[in-house]
């Protein structure tokens, strides 16, 4: 393994600035690492030499002139749900096989402007629906720390790529935990911003009131730099906010005097592994020792979060995925008698089992006679969940706890029982329902596998989440390592 594939952004940026390495060398080292380990990890759906060769050269030209910023020349992987002009983008689905987007998503184009170099497109659960990347319409991705286990999901390819040293940073999306959970089980940093912090223009929509784009990295500082470069108002997404882009404010101020809330419900969720609990307790002790005041808080509707989520997200997905009809792009079954048959057979063949299951569930929840009992009820419970967080944040500055109740599980172990898979997100989906920023940072291991500490902050307080995560990283000395991949 080359040392170049173990660097953080600040380390790489320093070497690039003094011309000890070139962007082309840095990118080549990552491409070689992909060639070496990706046949085992399978994090990438495809690489993009048409982009990285040109972008690396452009970065070197900028650096030669003494221009560019911290992201200039930094090798990046992009989840297969973010459109990049001319690049095949399929949302991990056979229904979009061969689709080449005519435009680039705002998040990606802002990172291109900042000088990041796109290595390739990463695997994910189909339409970002899943917690293991096993629902990909192409192939499963393997956890770089144990190839027989899942990398989490849905952004499992992005998390695995960063954990295996195949990319320095990666982009993911988080609708119920799809950045934070794979980050936790792959031992990297992953952040979901406040709903509206990053423009969703050019993101293939899953659940529009929950989806957010965010970074994967191997340090909290790197995650902060990537988020800062993507954040901010975009006229092409009316839900993107024009609030000040202050996510790195007070980044290094530590937690002395901060109040950190530990929700009592979070330690009691179904399926919580004792080893995960122990690692997270140690992490909270480290924050206590670093000067934070640890306080008990309560989120009484935690037990109803999963149920509300599995009405709201499928309802929104059933509407968003109506556009995949075999007419405008992607798969189209042509030997049919009429257009309805074309729609129905195209969607049966193009969507995988989980996506069809969620469309059916969402369609049912929105159908005549059931709307009030399911969808409206879930939206009311969503209000109660948000109020729980408001109340908790009146007693603390941030909430800390486990990101995932379990470590990475064996491939195939949860595929037969959808509810057991859904329970992977029980600690993360509250953050989506309430629109909060949340970050997962590595906090040790259980059974030799990575465990993540989640920090949730009030809306628009990414600065608080990052500051706490950074303080933990400094106090504990726990760093995201690169897996050797045997």
């Amino acid at each position: 393994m080359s040392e170049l594939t173990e660097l953080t952004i600040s380390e790489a940026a320093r070497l690039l600035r003094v011309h000890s390495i070139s962007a082309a060398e840095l990118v080549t080292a990552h491409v070689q690492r992909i060639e070496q380990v990706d046949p085992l990890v399978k994090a990438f759906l495809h690489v993009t030499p048409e982009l990285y060769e040109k972008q690396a050269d452009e970065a070197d030209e900028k650096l030669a002139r003494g221009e560019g910023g911290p992201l200039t020349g930094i090798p990046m992987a992009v989840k297969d749900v973010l459109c990049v002009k001319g690049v095949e983008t399929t949302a991990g689905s056979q229904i979009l096989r061969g689709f080449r987007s005519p435009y680039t998503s705002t998040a990606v184009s802002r990172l291109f402007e900042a000088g990041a170099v796109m290595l390739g497109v990463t695997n994910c659960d189909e339409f970002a629906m899943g917690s293991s990347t096993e629902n990909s319409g192409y192939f499963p991705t393997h956890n770089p720390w144990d190839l027989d286990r899942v990398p989490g999901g849905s952004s499992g390819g992005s998390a695995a790529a960063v954990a295996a040293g195949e990319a320095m940073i990666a982009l993911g999306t988080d609708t119920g935990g799809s950045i934070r959970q794979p980050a936790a089980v792959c031992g990297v940093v992953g952040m979901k911003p406040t709903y509206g912090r990053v423009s969703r223009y050019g993101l293939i929509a899953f659940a529009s009131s929950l989806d957010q784009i965010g970074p994967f990295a191997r340090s909290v500082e790197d995650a902060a730099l990537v988020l800062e470069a993507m954040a901010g108002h975009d006229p092409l997404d009316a839900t993107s906010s024009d609030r000040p882009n202050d996510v790195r404010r007070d980044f290094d101020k530590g937690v002395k005097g901060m109040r950190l809330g530990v929700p009592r419900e979070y330690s009691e969720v179904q399926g919580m592994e004792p080893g995960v609990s122990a690692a997270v307790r140690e992490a909270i002790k480290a924050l206590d020792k670093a000067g934070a005041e640890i306080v008990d808080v309560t989120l009484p509707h935690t037990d109803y979060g999963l149920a509300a989520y599995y009405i709201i997200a499928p309802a929104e997905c059933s509407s968003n995925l109506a556009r995949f009809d075999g007419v405008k792009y992607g798969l189209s079954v042509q030997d049919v008698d009429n257009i309805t048959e074309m729609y129905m057979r195209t969607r049966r063949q193009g969507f995988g089992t989980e996506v069809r299951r969620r469309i059916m569930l969402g369609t049912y929840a929105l159908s005549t006679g059931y709307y009030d009992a399911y969808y409206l009820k879930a939206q009311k419970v969503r209000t109660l969940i948000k109020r729980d967080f408001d109340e908790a944040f009146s007693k603390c500055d941030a909430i800390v706890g486990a990101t995932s109740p379990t470590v990475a599980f064996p491939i195939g172990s949860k595929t037969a029982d959808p509810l057991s898979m859904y329970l992977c997100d029980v600690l993360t989906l509250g953050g989506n329902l309430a629109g909060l920023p949340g970050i997962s940072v590595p906090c040790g291991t259980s059974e030799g596998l990575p465990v993540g500490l989640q920090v949730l902050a009030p809306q628009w307080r990414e600065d608080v989440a990052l500051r706490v995560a950074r303080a933990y990283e400094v106090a504990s000395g726990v760093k995201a390592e690169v897996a050797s991949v045997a």
Partner: protein
Amino acid sequence: MPLTRDQVRHVAQLARIALEPGDEEFYAEQLSGILEHIDRLQEVPTDDIPPTAQVVEVTNPLRDDVPRPGLTQEEALANAPAAVNGFFRVPSIQEEA
């Protein structure tokens, strides 16, 4: 509340997803299991609680209506499974009279 096979057929029709042999039983069983968990929502008193559809406080942001170039016809059709004379081609939508 368990989902019947009739309901599965109805929902599949609404969602425009064809059913293949075995699908009805599969969805009836799996969706019933998920709905059984979801039914716990009925335990929560929500009479005076307003629904949340949008979680951050943004209301009707307006922008200037400035013309900008859209996709060309060629770009718009580039991914079409079937196109003819600048249109998306689809199977017949009406029976012949």
